[in-house]
């Protein structure tokens, strides 16, 4: 059996077995099962890392099995240098989500963990799918468990947030479905590699106006998911109302479905339209960066603050992608991973604080560092990572994005870097108000330090922040190879450097157009 199948279907098997756990079994049974099954998936995905051939770019470990005869739909999956890391991110975060939900989810535990595993299945599927139809299927499959996670286990306004989340995504994705069907009617295939092949050989061309509409249909669906300003309004609601595990999965992985979609589908399929829209999209991204940061600054609610900081950070990703430069794309992908790690950790620790104090308001805290020093240290490292302190992960990504943006248009880089400064303001200010100062009454005696289980959830993320900050060469080469292929497909005339095992090697890109 192919390893990709194992990684993809283990969570599904976990989901089905979790459903089969009898109601009479204790709540502990389902969470132990969820932990075992998600750790198993993570182990399998580490195997993916070993099997992935770093020497060659492009899609690897492909599986292609016919699923439905008419229309010709295949179960086609494969992994590339970008999706590899996103899958690892999903499989790493799922067991951590199980750990951090251990004691907080008391109601309907079985269903909670079942939905979490179903979500993991959908997310991995999105990153693996190489058939446009299959991609759409997984895209929608992710929607349902997240809807229930927010709606059942969320906070007070959970229903509003869940419905808003579902409808926003649905509205975007039906247009993408129309575009997918349109492409199928034109090409008679859903196979993404086959369509790319037709495009590169010139057997398939999208005339300018048609290409623009198709691009917008895809982009709209992805931009809602990212979310790109001004389509971001579902995000603060969903993040604030979701339970901790839901916020983590939503911020760390689900938002990347949008950026991955843009990178993997929009750019290669519709290069001309994408580049025609690039200035507009970049401006929206920069507005998002600054707007998100400014709104984050004035939030009295910690989760809302982190949610708006996501809007700001994802703006960097979009800016990097639409710079159409090698460092820009690399940085965007790296930033996708960084944001997954550091924002995941932020939501995790905010969730731990909520578990102790039952409040998300910054004003209810103060002096936490005195009573829970280790928790504060963990949060400090995460904060610094999120700000983009050198030696921690976000610095690398932001640097590359700004470099790419500066090549494309220097002013964009200048404006975007304002966002970096602002991020330091709102994060440090929040840190100061929550962790320093007088120990408030609600905090004293209510906030124990991290337990062993919580350490187990936090440590992997902090380790990753440091590793990704100082050892970016462990991660970037496969990414660069893949982004180089994407740039080549978009006919950008650049030369780029790929480092394989320390030996710099310069490759030329066809200077088309």
């Amino acid at each position: 059996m192919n390893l990709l199948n194992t990684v993809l279907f283990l969570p599904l098997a976990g989901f089905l077995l979790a459903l089969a756990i009898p109601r009479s079994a204790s709540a502990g049974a389902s969470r132990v099962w969820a932990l075992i099954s998600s750790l198993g998936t993570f182990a399998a995905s580490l195997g993916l890392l070993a099997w992935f051939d770093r020497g060659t770019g492009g899609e690897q470990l492909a599986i292609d099995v016919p699923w439905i005869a008419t229309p010709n739909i295949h179960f086609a999956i494969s992994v590339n240098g970008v999706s590899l890391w996103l899958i690892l991110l999903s499989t790493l975060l799922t067991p951590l989500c199980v750990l951090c939900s251990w004691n907080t989810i008391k109601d309907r535990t079985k269903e909670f963990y079942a939905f979490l595993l179903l979500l993991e299945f959908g997310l991995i599927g999105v990153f693996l799918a190489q058939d446009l139809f299959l991609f759409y299927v997984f895209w929608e499959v992710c929607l349902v468990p997240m809807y229930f996670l927010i709606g059942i286990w969320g906070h007070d306004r959970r229903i509003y947030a869940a419905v808003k989340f579902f409808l926003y995504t649905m509205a975007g994705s039906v247009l993408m479905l129309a575009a997918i069907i349109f492409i199928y009617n034109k090409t008679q295939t859903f196979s993404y590699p086959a369509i790319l092949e037709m495009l590169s050989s010139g057997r398939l061309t999208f005339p300018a106006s048609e290409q623009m509409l198709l691009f917008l249909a895809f982009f709209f669906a992805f931009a809602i998911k990212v979310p790109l300003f001004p389509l971001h309004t579902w995000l603060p609601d969903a993040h604030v109302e979701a339970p901790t595990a839901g916020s983590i999965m939503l911020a760390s992985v689900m938002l990347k479905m949008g950026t991955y979609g843009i990178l993997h589908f929009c750019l290669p399929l519709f290069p001309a339209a994408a580049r025609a829209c690039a200035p507009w999209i970049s401006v929206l991204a920069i507005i998002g960066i600054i707007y998100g940061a400014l709104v984050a600054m004035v939030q009295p609610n910690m989760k809302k603050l982190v949610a708006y900081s996501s809007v700001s950070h994802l703006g960097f990703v979009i800016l990097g992608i639409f710079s159409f430069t090698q460092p820009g794309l690399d940085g965007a992908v790296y930033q996708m991973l960084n944001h997954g790690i550091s924002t995941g950790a932020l939501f995790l620790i905010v969730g731990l604080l909520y578990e102790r104090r039952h409040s998300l308001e910054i004003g209810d805290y103060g002096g936490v560092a005195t009573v829970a020093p280790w928790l504060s240290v963990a949060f400090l490292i995460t904060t610094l990572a999120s700000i983009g302190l050198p030696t921690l992960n976000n610095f690398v990504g932001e640097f590359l994005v700004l470099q790419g943006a500066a090549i494309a248009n220097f002013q964009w880089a200048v404006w975007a870097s304002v966002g970096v400064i602002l991020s330091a303001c709102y994060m440090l200010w929040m840190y100061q108000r929550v962790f320093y100062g007088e120990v408030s009454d609600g905090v004293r005696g209510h906030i124990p330090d991290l337990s062993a289980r919580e350490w187990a959830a936090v440590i992997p993320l902090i380790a990753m922040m440091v590793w990704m900050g100082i050892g970016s060469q462990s991660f970037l080469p496969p990414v660069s190879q893949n982004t180089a292929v994407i740039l080549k497909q978009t006919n950008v005339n650049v030369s780029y450097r790929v480092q394989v095992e320390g030996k710099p090697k310069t490759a030329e890109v066809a200077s088309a157009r």
Partner: protein
Amino acid sequence: MPVSPVFNPQDALRFLPEIILTVMGTLLMVLDPLIHRRSSPAFGHISLVALLAALGGSVYANSIAGPAFGGMLKVDGFATFFRVLVIVVGILTVFPSYRFLARQEAETSEYHALLLFSIAGQCLMAASNDLIMVFIGLEISSIASYVLAGYLRDDKRSNESALKYFLLGSFATGFFLYGVALIYGITGSVNLTVARDAILHQAGDSTLFVGVAAALIFVGLAFKVSAAPFQIWAPDVYQGAPTPVAAFLSAGPKAAAFAVFLRIFMTAFEPIAGKWQILVWTAALASMCVGNFAALLQTNIKRMLAYSSIAHAGYVLVALTAQSETGIAAAMFYLAGYAFMNVGAFAAVTVLTGKGERYQSIDDFKGMGRQQPLAAAMFSIFLLSLIGVPLTGGFFGKFYIFKAALESKLVWLSVLGLLNSAVGAYYYLRILVVMYMHEPGEAVESSEALSGSLGIALLLPALGTLVLGIFPGWVLEFASKSAAIMK
């Protein structure tokens, strides 16, 4: 084609499902005085046996496919598809009826007899290739359904439902018959094949009348499938009718009417396709918009499902607008998926409504996920399928329909239709919200444990929905083949 006076045994075999259903229906009525108990499940069992036999009969009839009774009937893949479909709808209706009738302490023999007659009429509609046969089938089916809608005769709403259905229904049948008369006047025949040739070879002055005839027949059938602007009756009728009957009405007669719709418009009226396309286009868009937007405002769950069924009729009309073989196949597939998910959804409603159908409000479903986990889970599958979430039959149905529409370059209709389906998601989600995200209310607390027959009534359609959603291939292939040879 003159009707042959010689009786051909093959004709009777091709007519087998209708024969079985009629005989068994009559048998049920004869047995009524013999089995004295008021709410005996025995009649339900007989009804099931009859339906299964009819199912076998349809499959057998397909193996000796061909015209029957001098071309008045035409047993082909298309007819078989819809015969099987309406019989399956019948089977799915019998299961929730057991518990429902027992709970209301209602007579069971007449109920099941009427159900069988109605299905016999629908089978006849599916197989007829002659406008008079269509009319007879339509009447057999409708008259039985009028009575079924008013089956709980002590219930005011049920009476209102039956009366409305009857008055408006007969009015619409009048339109249909008027159209048939015009066609006979123009072409000299009521046989669809003959009429088609006549229309093809006729030039000039009579095209206007053919158009008028098509419009009249369209009105009659649009009423039967509850397409806007002829949908006014549906919410009242579905709300007042006994819930399993509402399930049946929303799937069975609708599927049969669509079968006739497709058959007439894609054979006899195909030569003037350009003329009626705009008619169907408008009705499709209007149905989707009216259905989805009106459903947003409903508080009664049966009314909401009624409006949703109007919207779904709109989706099927989109497939008809495409005027292609893929469009016909898509419509067939959609109706199959729709039958499972909608009958299932109504069956899930019966779990809670209680004696006298007291609990019909959407709020009564609060906390269903806690007290009735299995029923709520199955209901969720039906709702997700109605929304059109992948891996359910409803999704593939929509997918095929909009694929066919885009192939026929109906870009605007497709985009508006898809956006409509996003609007639709809202009201289906509302039920999911009350089922899972609220604490149980009175209706749920007082609900009885799920009985065996009701469990089957939920599991069967759920299975059907999922199978169509994961392996849609063989149903679609059969539909495509039948669509190709229909003309």
